Every structure is written in structure tokens, then in C-alpha cells.
């Protein structure tokens, strides 16, 4: 079933997303206006699959059938061998106009054609006799205005396209979430696209709109139009000249818009270039580090370390010498009043020191007294020894204890009963005659002390 052109177009517009997707495909491929049939039917099948009503599905299948499109004059080519189709340019242009972001920018070549047109108009005008009513001149005038309108329309479309693209792509870049890998990929792609548009479309458009552009051949487009206006003015046709100047000013007015686009995109172009530079630098620096590491591959890698002085570590040298210092800080800058601190130290330490000194002195004094007593005792013992050596005791004496007691009491200073026993010991060691104990118990009381003893009698003469 063949569906009429108008109805087919209406349905196509109702489902414009399919064709906008196809335009995106064309723009991505950059290989002319041909669309593979498989790609086309893939999009159409996706659309039909999203519709629930079977009747609508059937209707859409018929309308979007390639044969139907061809019958409706919406295709200009259907190559069965290569399995590609080409839509009529007005169809593509129509859908591009639905979304300024998808308008096609003018390439350098297309701009050159527009410039050449204006130069051709000027050239023909100079050759022609400028006289209203002259058939050749009238025909030329029609062509001149046709070319001017075409240039106006193309530039306008170009600027809309650039604005749309700039807006769409900058939105992707601005909304980029660095954490999201998918968004990062989209942003990288958008930046590449911006770079391409900037170099291939924005700068050439600005050149086209620049009246002072230095060209090898011919005049800049607007300068040529200016000269056309001058020729007409000089020929006494100010009205027509004025129309030409209006057209020229209309075209030139887009220069401001394109300059704004350039400034907007330039930021992203710089961002793109910076990111590319960063990527290349990191890649190169890492590869240098890896190469240095691979030089260690001489068999076993045990105990193989990179040399920190190697040239590959040049960039890191900004941190050379950065390390934790392994010593206690020599400077004490704490907020301390040292005089107060010293006073406090004296307050606490001095009493301690005095106590310590006192204890030490006391200990020394005790030791000294003890020594003195010992020494006195020693001297007393020696005195007793000496006295007992001088003692003459009669052989018939019946109580040696009593004799020594009286003897020492008389001869020894500070005599005590203890000294009696010491004297007896020395006496025993001095005399050779035996001492015989008597069978009775005697008592000597002296100076508050009492000694009970068995009296000793000397048998025979005392001799040393």
C-alpha cells in the first residue's frame, strides 16, 4: 500500500526521534548522506516495538517501508547492492531545523563557495553595462540578490547550528561528574567534538565574516559585496546599492554571534588541549619510569631497587630532602617563663636537698660515735692487759676474783664488773699455775651490778 507524501511526512514528523537518531548517525559517520538499510530498519523496528496497538504497528510498517518512502519522493537513492538509502536533502534539513543542535555547520569548502559566489557577482557586474532595463543587467541583479539571500540563509543556519552544538556540548562538559566513568567518556567525546567544531567551523566562519582577511585569490566575501554596492552607487543606483548594503550588514551582524560562540568554545578547547597534554605527559613520564624499572630485569629481581638519583626521578626532586628529622628538637620555644620555672624548681628541690644533706650528716655522726666507743673499748682492753701484766699476786691467795676486783678498782678508771672478767682472762693466760675453783658461791657487788662466782684459788707461786 502506498501512503501519500504529505501523510508520510506527517507521520515522520510525529516520530521525529527516529530521524533525529539517523541524523546523529550520519554526523557521527561523517561519510555523506547515505544510511545503511540495516541501521534504518533497526531504528524503525525499535519504534514499532514500543507501540502496543497491532493496527498502529502495521500502519507504521507500511509508511516507513523503503519502497513507500521512495514512491513518496522522500528518498533520492536506494542502492540495493550496497544496501544503503539516501533521504532527500530537504527531509534531512527539515529535521535538522527541529533541533538547532543538529543543524549542519558550514565547512571551509562551503564557505569558500559562498565567497566565490560574491566575487563572481562582482566580476560579472564590472563586465556588465549597469543600466536598469538592460536584460543582461536585470538578470545579473536577480542572481546577485539570489546569492546574497543564499549567503544570508546559510550563515544564519550555520550560526544557529554552532550555537546549538555549543550549547549541547558545553552542557555535557559542565554536568560532568568526574566519579562517573560513563560520563567521563561522554565528556571526553564532547570535548573532541568541540575541538573539531572550533577548528573546522567556527574559525573558518569568522574568517569568512572578516572583511580584512588576507587572501591569495579574490576578495573576502563581505568586501566583494561592499564593492558591488559601490559599483551600483557609482552607476547612479543608490536604492539598489542600499539593498545590497543591508544584505551585507545582515551577514556581518552574525560575526558578533560567532565571536561569542568562539569565546565560549575556546574555554573548552583549552580544557581539551590541557587534558590531552596532561594525558601525554603522564603517559610519557610513566613509561620512562617503567623503562627504568625494566632495566632491572637481568634475571633475578631479588634486592633490585631503583636508584633514587636516576634521571627519571627528576620531577620528584622538588621534594628532595623532605623527611622526618630523627632527633629531638634542639630549640625549646615553648611559652615558659624560665625565671618562674627555676624558682619552682628551687622551691621543690632545695628542701629535698637539705633533708638529704641532714640525713647524710646524721649517718656520718652515728658512724663516728660508734667508732669512738669501739676505740675507747679497745683502749680499755689494752689498759687491762697492761695492768694485769704488772700485777703481783701471792701464791696462797684464796679468792682470785676478789683480788683482781680490788686491784682493777684501784688502778683502772671507769672500772666496771665486766672489766673484772676481762682481767681474769688476761691473768689466766699469763700464769702457768693452775686455778682451782672452791666449792662455795661468793658475791661481789659494785656500782649497781652483782657478780656471783665460784672463787678461784691459786695453787703454787705465780710466774709468767
Amino acid at each position, binding site marked *: 500500500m502506498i501512503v501519500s507524501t504529505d501523510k508520510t511526512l506527517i507521520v515522520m514528523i510525529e516520530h521525529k526521534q527516529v530521524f533525529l537518531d539517523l541524523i546523529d548517525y550520519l554526523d557521527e559517520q561523517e561519510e555523506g548522506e547515505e544510511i545503511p538499510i540495516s541501521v534504518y530498519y533497526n531504528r524503525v523496528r525499535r519504534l514499532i516495538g514500543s507501540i502496543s496497538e497491532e493496527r498502529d504497528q502495521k500502519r507504521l510498517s507500511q509508511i516507513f517501508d523503503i519502497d513507500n518512502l521512495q514512491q513518496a519522493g522522500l528518498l533520492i537513492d536506494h542502492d540495493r547492492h550496497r544496501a544503503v538509502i539516501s533521504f532527500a536533502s530537504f527531509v534531512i534539513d527539515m529535521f535538522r531545523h527541529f533541533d538547532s543542535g543538529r543543524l549542519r555547520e558550514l565547512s571551509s569548502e562551503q564557505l569558500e563557495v559562498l565567497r566565490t559566489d560574491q566575487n563572481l557577482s562582482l566580476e560579472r557586474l564590472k563586465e556588465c553595462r549597469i543600466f536598469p532595463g538592460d536584460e543582461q543587467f536585470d538578470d545579473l541583479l536577480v542572481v546577485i540578490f539570489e546569492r546574497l539571500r543564499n549567503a544570508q540563509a546559510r550563515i544564519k543556519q550555520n550560526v544557529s547550528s554552532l550555537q546549538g552544538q555549543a550549547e549541547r556540548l558545553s552542557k555535557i562538559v559542565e554536568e560532568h561528574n*568526574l566519579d562517573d566513568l560513563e560520563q*567521563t567518556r561522554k565528556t571526553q567525546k564532547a570535548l573532541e567534538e568541540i575541538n573539531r567544531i572550533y577548528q573546522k567551523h567556527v574559525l573558518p566562519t569568522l574568517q569568512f565574516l572578516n572583511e580584512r582577511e588576507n587572501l591569495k585569490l579574490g576578495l573576502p566575501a563581505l568586501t566583494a559585496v561592499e564593492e558591488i554596492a559601490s559599483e551600483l552607487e557609482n552607476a547612479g543606483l543608490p536604492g539598489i546599492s542600499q539593498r545590497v548594503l543591508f544584505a551585507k550588514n545582515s551577514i556581518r551582524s552574525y560575526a558578533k554571534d560567532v565571536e561569542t560562540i568562539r569565546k565560549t568554545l575556546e574555554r573548552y578547547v583549552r580544557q581539551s588541549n590541557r*587534558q590531552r597534554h596532561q594525558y601525554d605527559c603522564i603517559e610519557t613520564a*610513566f613509561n620512562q619510569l617503567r623503562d627504568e624499572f625494566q632495566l632491572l630485569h637481568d634475571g633475578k629481581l631479588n634486592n633490585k631497587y631503583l636508584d633514587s638519583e636516576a634521571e627519571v626521578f627528576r*620531577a*620528584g626532586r622538588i621534594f628532595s*630532602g623532605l623527611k622526618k628529622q630523627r632527633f629531638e628538637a634542639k630549640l625549646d620555644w615553648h611559652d615558659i617563663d624560665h625565671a618562674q620555672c627555676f624558682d619552682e624548681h628551687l622551691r621543690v628541690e632545695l628542701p629535698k636537698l637539705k633533708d638529704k644533706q641532714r640525713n647524710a650528716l646524721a649517718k656520718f655522726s652515728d658512724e663516728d660515735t660508734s667508732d669512738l666507743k669501739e676505740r675507747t673499748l679497745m683502749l680499755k682492753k689494752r689498759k687491762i692487759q697492761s695492768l694485769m701484766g704488772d700485777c703481783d699476786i701471792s701464791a696462797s691467795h684464796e679468792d682470785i676474783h676478789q683480788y683482781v676486783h680490788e686491784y682493777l678498782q684501784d688502778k683502772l678508771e671507769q672500772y666496771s664488773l665486766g672489766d673484772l672478767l676481762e682481767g681474769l682472762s688476761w691473768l689466766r693466760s699469763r700464769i702457768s699455775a693452775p686455778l682451782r675453783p672452791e666449792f662455795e658461791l661468793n658475791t661481789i657487788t659494785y656500782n649497781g651490778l652483782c657478780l656471783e662466782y665460784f672463787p678461784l684459788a691459786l695453787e703454787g707461786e705465780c710466774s709468767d
Partner: protein
Amino acid sequence: MIDKELSQQIYREFMNGRVINELVYQKDGSMQPDARYEELFNNYDSDYRELYENIGYELILKDGFAFSRSLDEDDSYSDVAMKIQSLLMIIARGIQELGYDFELLTTHDAGVSDHLLEQVETGEKRDILLACGLKKSLIDEVKNGLETRNIAYRNAKGKLVLTAAGQGFFDEVFGDV
């Protein structure tokens, strides 16, 4: 005029081998100026440079960060720098290979997660770290070598972000290569 308290803080930081950055990440996610960097910056020529020279150190004041280095170049003079460079290069190259932008590492509300660091630490990169004497895991070495020295920090999401000092290293790389 030297601020006594800030001067003491600066000295402690430097003696512990740490960098002082111009901006410090705050818990609320903002970046605030560090008073110690301002103190150094304002009194660098008049006081601090000579002060540190007199005690045997060179005071390095870069755009956005500062640190001190000993004037005695001993054996370990370049070791720390080598380790810092290796860690930074491994991370930067690693995230690039995974498809992320370098800005992930420098944007304070983005940052590199521990999960990504684990993905970065693959065979060859692990071997390079070992050849630089970095034997622990990348996450641990980053903590020891970058975070404690204020070359990188963790943001509110717990992700690793470079300070001005870390970015300063890459400025050298981008300018050098």
C-alpha cells in the same frame, strides 16, 4: 613580625617531614586558607628564610605549599622524593588507564576511592612500587607517603585528593615532559 605560636606549629610540621599547604580541606567540604602558610608567606624574606638557614635548613616556599629540607645531603636525601614520585605516577597513570580524567585526583569533591586504588595496583605497577622500596599495599603506602606528609588528603567521601603540594609535582611533570 613573627607569630610565636604559628612559628612553633610550622617548626613542628617541618621537623616531622610534612608540607604546609596554602589551602586546607575542611570537614564541610570547603577549602580554607592555612594561617601557617600565610605566616610563612608574609614573613619569608624578612624572617623565616634566614631563621631556617641559621639552623641548617632550606625553607622551600612554592606556589601553594611550603616545606623545609636539611642542608646536609645524606643518603636518604632523594629516597623520600623517589617514593613520592612513584606513588603519584602509579596512581595518575592507573586512573588514566581506567578511563578517568586526571582531574579526578585534583578536584576536592571528587577523588580516588580505595576501590580504584586497588584496581590500579596491578602486576607491573606493584613491581615498580617494590623496586622503589614500597613493600606494603598501595593504600598503606599512600597513607604513609602522601597523606601523612600532606601531599594528599581524604575528602568527606573518604576519597584521595591531591593537595597543592601533590599538584605541584604534576606541574613539574606537565612542564618537563
